């Protein structure tokens, strides 16, 4: 039994008369201590998927169908108070921009200890000691002094370390990280990613990493989910997906990486762009951008097919020529 089992999850945003669908029934699971990556361009629904796990969708978004089963309980149906005991306790989140994630008018110490005190009956001093030890775990120098600092006194990288420390405070079983390094300096990105990988592996914490950076995903995760226009289009073991992508969209993403292109040459782009939520084409939603699309692609919505370890949602999966990688990611 998987630790987390997302089944046919649908999310919609009712906007006046029309309702926009952001997720068209996605399913995936996460085992204890497993690290998976969800990749895709902006607008693919990655963040919506991440936030819907904790039912933290921005208004007016809501889960309209499906289940989020965590420890044998459908947490998508819980009320706010029941959900409160899951959030930050059993499942924590790391947000994209560390500059915006910490409250500017409260000290680091306050923002850490309050999380512990919300979930455990412990004294102020105990909460402080745990917080300091977690700050030490994320390699923040002189953590005792940092407890009294305000967020603006720390750099972006330091702030993201604090956010990671907060996510780890209650020893959760899953961390959902929504583009945790996107807003950071390139040199800091690798450091933060390495730190997260180490902490998750050492503490046997499951990680759901949302990113558009395939290079990061290939280093950190064991499994990859590729999303396009609110659907999962490919899923498999990281190595399989990276070395032998089946879906034309995944291929496009990998081909577009600078590592996959020869120096000085134009980067291979995927032509066109992600459709808006109210303009998703009929049939396979990727068809306007796909080199292999034919009439059938405009009619049928493809289902995930293939061996359990590596599935893809493309009806022409057998017709597409084998993938030629220059080996940039491996």
């Amino acid at each position, binding site marked *: 039994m998987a630790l987390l089992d997302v089944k046919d999850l649908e999310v919609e945003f009712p906007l006046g008369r029309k309702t926009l669908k952001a997720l068209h029934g996605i399913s995936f699971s996460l085992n204890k201590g497993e690290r998976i990556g969800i990749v895709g361009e902006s607008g693919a629904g990655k963040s919506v998927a991440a936030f819907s796990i904790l039912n933290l969708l921005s208004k007016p978004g809501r889960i309209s169908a499906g289940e989020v089963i965590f420890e044998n309980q459908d947490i998508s149906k819980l009320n706010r108070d029941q959900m409160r005991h899951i*959030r*930050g306790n059993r499942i924590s989140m790391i947000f994209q921009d560390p500059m*915006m994630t910490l409250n*500017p*008018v409260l000290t680091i110490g306050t923002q850490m200890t309050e999380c512990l005190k919300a*979930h455990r009956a412990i004294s102020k001093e105990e909460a402080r000691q745990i917080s300091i030890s977690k700050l030490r775990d994320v390699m923040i120098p002189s953590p005792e002094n940092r407890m009294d600092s305000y967020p*603006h006194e720390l750099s972006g990288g330091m702030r993201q370390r604090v*956010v990671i420390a907060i996510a780890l405070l209650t020893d959760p079983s899953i961390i959902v990280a929504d583009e945790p390094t996107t807003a950071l300096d390139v040199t800091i990105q690798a450091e933060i990613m390495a730190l997260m990988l180490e902490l998750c592996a050492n503490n046997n914490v499951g990680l759901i990493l949302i990113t558009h950076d395939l290079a990061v995903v290939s280093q950190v995760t064991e499994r990859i989910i590729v999303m396009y226009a609110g659907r999962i289009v490919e899923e498999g073991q990281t190595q399989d997906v990276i070395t032998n992508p089946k879906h034309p969209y995944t291929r496009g993403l990998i081909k577009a990486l600078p590592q996959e292109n020869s120096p000085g040459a134009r980067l291979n782009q995927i032509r066109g762009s992600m459709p808006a939520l109210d303009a998703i084409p009929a049939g396979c939603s990727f068809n306007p951008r796909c080199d292999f699309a034919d009439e059938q692609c405009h009619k049928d919505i493809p289902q995930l097919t293939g061996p359990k370890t590596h599935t893809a949602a493309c009806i022409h999966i057998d017709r597409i020529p084998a993938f030629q990688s220059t080996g940039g990611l491996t």
Partner: protein
Amino acid sequence: MDYLYFAIKRLLQAVLVMLVISLIGFSIQDNLGDPLRELVGQSVSENEREAMRDRMGLNDPFLTQYGRFMYKAVQGDLGNSYFFKKPALEVIAAKFPATLELVIGATLLIIFFAVPLGVYCAINPKGWFSKFIMAFSIVGISVPVFLTAIFLIYVFAVELGWMPSFGRGDTSDLLGWNSGFLTVDGLVHLVLPSISLASIMMPLFIRLIRSEMMEILEMDYIKFAWAKGLVPVRVWFLHAFKNTLLPVITVGGVQVGTMLAYTILTESVFQWPGMGFLFLEAVNRVDTPLIIAYIIVVGLIFVVTNTFVDLLYTWVNPTVKLVGSR
């Protein structure tokens, strides 16, 4: 060190502002009618009047008069009231407690009602009660304060007879301060004037708190606070409200000054023996020294409250701590 620099800078600014206020205040005296007409009777001849003008220095050049005025002003002497025949500052000081208590009463009302109502409307923007408050606050903003005051007197004093309609009631001595806070009668008399004075600011603050807080509630750090599993009360009243306070304090500081100005209307409707009522009487009597003294005292209160607000702002918002350094 930063703090000292900040304090000195503020003090210099305050002196400059006070200089400008005194200049404006003093320069209106030439255009405010003839003090002698109020001072002496019909029987005094034109020659005698001219002689008195000379004696009082009213015929000197403007700058000479202003210099003399400032020389005395820095010593705490703003001239004698023509009507009361007493130092103007002393006359104002005697009325000051009444006005201050009225402002305190109104401010307390605003804090105790505007904060919870504003926060409530921000949390439930679509609830019927929020919509009702928003609609009602439009009415509150639109109705002038003297109309509210007369309406309150009509309903609660004339028709229902629950509340007194004028005056301060019993006052008692509190460390040399003539206070109405300590007697039941004094407090009862404070209710209607405080409500009508608060009525003009209350809707503004409710709307301000609501709109600022709604914006704050969309911020990432609030979402992160929810993701930490905190209880709603803590997210709303600590995480969101403390950030909402920053703009509210800035506006609030200015509004306290504006409220002082509105005391003139409230006090005259309720016959409240405060500075505002005194000022209106002084204008009627062309009691120039008293008018100038009032303007200067109110200016001083403005400067002091704004400095206080800046200090409060530093205390609430940690990111502006170093504002004093260059």
